[in-house]
């Protein structure tokens, strides 16, 4: 098969570029510790309100600056839609939906996860600066979708 020198050089460069990209991602994951959400359990959306921990949504203090926020995402609100934590808190959000697919993105952080009926979603964020962090639903969930948001108040 005839492959010109130019073509060969270009293919090698293209391959190298992609290898470099994958190495970069590996460094991000292994060194900087940036990971995507992973499975956190299954749940029956029809029985969400009677299944722990979703029978009692809200913020729990786990001690040592660690918190768990149990949040129900339903059309078209988060429950609760505001939590308050001190500076330096690490908050794990545990989310589930009783109806359609929702999304959760916490602005200014890496916390981003889909909330899919039948699945439990979990993401963690650390708050080192005081202020208000907005979170919004980022998957279309009906005509009130754009009204669905909440916030973390860090003092």
């Amino acid at each position, binding site marked *: 098969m*005839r492959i010109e020198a130019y*073509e060969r050089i270009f293919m090698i460069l*293209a391959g190298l570029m992609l290898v470099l990209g994958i190495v970069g991602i590996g460094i991000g994951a292994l060194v900087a510790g940036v990971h*995507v959400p992973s499975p956190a359990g299954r749940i029956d959306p029809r029985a969400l309100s009677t299944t722990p921990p979703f029978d009692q949504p809200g913020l729990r203090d786990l001690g040592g600056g660690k918190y768990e926020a149990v949040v129900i995402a339903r059309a078209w609100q988060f429950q609760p839609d505001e939590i308050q934590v001190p500076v330096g808190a690490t908050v794990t959000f545990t989310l589930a939906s009783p109806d359609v697919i929702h999304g959760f993105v916490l602005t200014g952080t890496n916390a*981003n996860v889909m909330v899919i009926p039948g699945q439990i979603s979990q993401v963690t964020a650390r708050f080192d600066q005081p202020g*208000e962090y907005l979170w919004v639903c980022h998957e279309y969930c*009906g005509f*009130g979708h754009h009204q669905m948001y909440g916030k973390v108040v860090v003092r």
Partner: protein
Amino acid sequence: MSATARARTVAGGGAVTHEGIFLAEQLWPIKGQLVLALIGLAIGGLMGLMQALDRVGIVIYKAMLMQTYYQGLTIHGVLLAFLFTFAFSNAFVSLVAIRGFERPLASTFLAQGAFWTMLVGTLLAAYAILTNQATVLFTFYAPMRASSLFFLGAALLVISTLLTALNLVLTRRAWQREHPGERTPLLGFVGVVTYVMWALASLGVVVLVVFFLLPWSLGWLKTTDPQFNRILFWYTGHAIVYFWLMPAYISWYLMVPRQVGGRVFSDSLVRLAFILLLVFSVPTGLHHQYVDPGIPTVMKVVHLFTTFSVVFPSLVTAFTVMAALEDGGRARGGTGLLGWIWKLPWGDPSVAAQLLAMLVFILGGATGIVNASYNLNNVVHNTSFVPGHFHMTVGTAVTLSFIGISYWLIPFLTGRELMGRRLALAQAWLWFVGVLLFARGQIAAGLLGEPRRSSIGEAPYRDLISAGLDNWLTAIGGTLMVISGLLYFIVVLWTVFAGRRLTQPLEIPVAEMRFGARETSPRLDQLGFWFLIAVILVAIAYIPTILLYLPLQSVSPPIKVY
């Protein structure tokens, strides 16, 4: 019978005549699908104005006769991502295959069937959407309920493409019987590869609609598993972007070089690029689901690698096409390192539109790598970064290329000269400027956390995301794109209804090769072998993932929330 059916064209030096390959009974379904594609582009594109202006709080969906923002958004997505792309590809690639194989399509019945299924599918889906029974966006994620007419319509649109795929494969087989031992002509080959890839890729959505969503929307199935459904959707949902792109690649690789007076480097590399697209396009879907809760990290990483693999043929495309353009520019008297660029025929609207589309695709590809990059995805997933990205790929690399192609395709099919050439040039440039502003706005706003698919204009948190300027850029850029679309339809209607009759029939532009098929390894012509490789790769990428979902956790009844 149009002038084109009698077209006598001369290709690449030899006096090859094409009399009798374009049969009238195969040309009308091609023209019919082109008309459907353009109707989809017109209506779907107009909806974009509503979405662009929404970013700055100008809410006009009622003025567009929509009940909600999301109904307009559904029309935008379904008509542009499914109808426009499918119908244009069916028409364009069928025509290319006829020219490539220098024979009529194997089956007139299938050619006409593709038109009728496309038409009926469009009518069913349009009825369901316009009556607000299917405001589910083009992703139609369960458990959001849509009318079964919508699912039936969507299924028919896909079936139309599969009829075309079958016809192309049969046409190649017929050609092989007539030319034993010869290498398949490249122009025919790339069309068949495009559709064979899509036949494998569409399997996910076919299974999803036929076995899950249609019975579920009819009440035969009570519940479904939303996470599993999403896996099936994205099995097709990423590969579909290559089904959108590959017809544009066909033009970039094998037609634009001719239009600019250049030659393509080699038959081998073009064939290799299309085969790599066939092999790597499908097992990549999970990278759309990096932040889905129900998929183990290890499977996400497998798809990370395959997604990066499919970037490779696109980089090869960048090289091959650029080399052919340079060849053309130098043949036209261009000198120096970059001097050839200005010598390209920028005054030809068909060429200018496609060159600008290629330029934008460089940015579209780069932002696509961001989406595919596992941990970077945490920042951009489902934010307006994503539509910023794909308006540069399908929204420009594909759409503006299809527009550029239509600047010779419509004269070819109607026998009428392209009218308003300066208007057509302005159209291409306006789109180019518009999409750059639009994408800049969407991407920057997305990095600040602005969600996609949301009516930002009505969102109570609009002022909490500091994307004021970005949203203005989106609104202005989007408006320019809609105006550009308007100019396009003026040119098209002008040409079709008032264009001067061509004195000589046009020829389809087909580039010459510097190194032809004889230098190409016969292995690269064995489509069956590469298809098998693709199937094996798909099995490796998807079977372990799917096994995790068995037995299915069917927990979600249909819910209507719009």
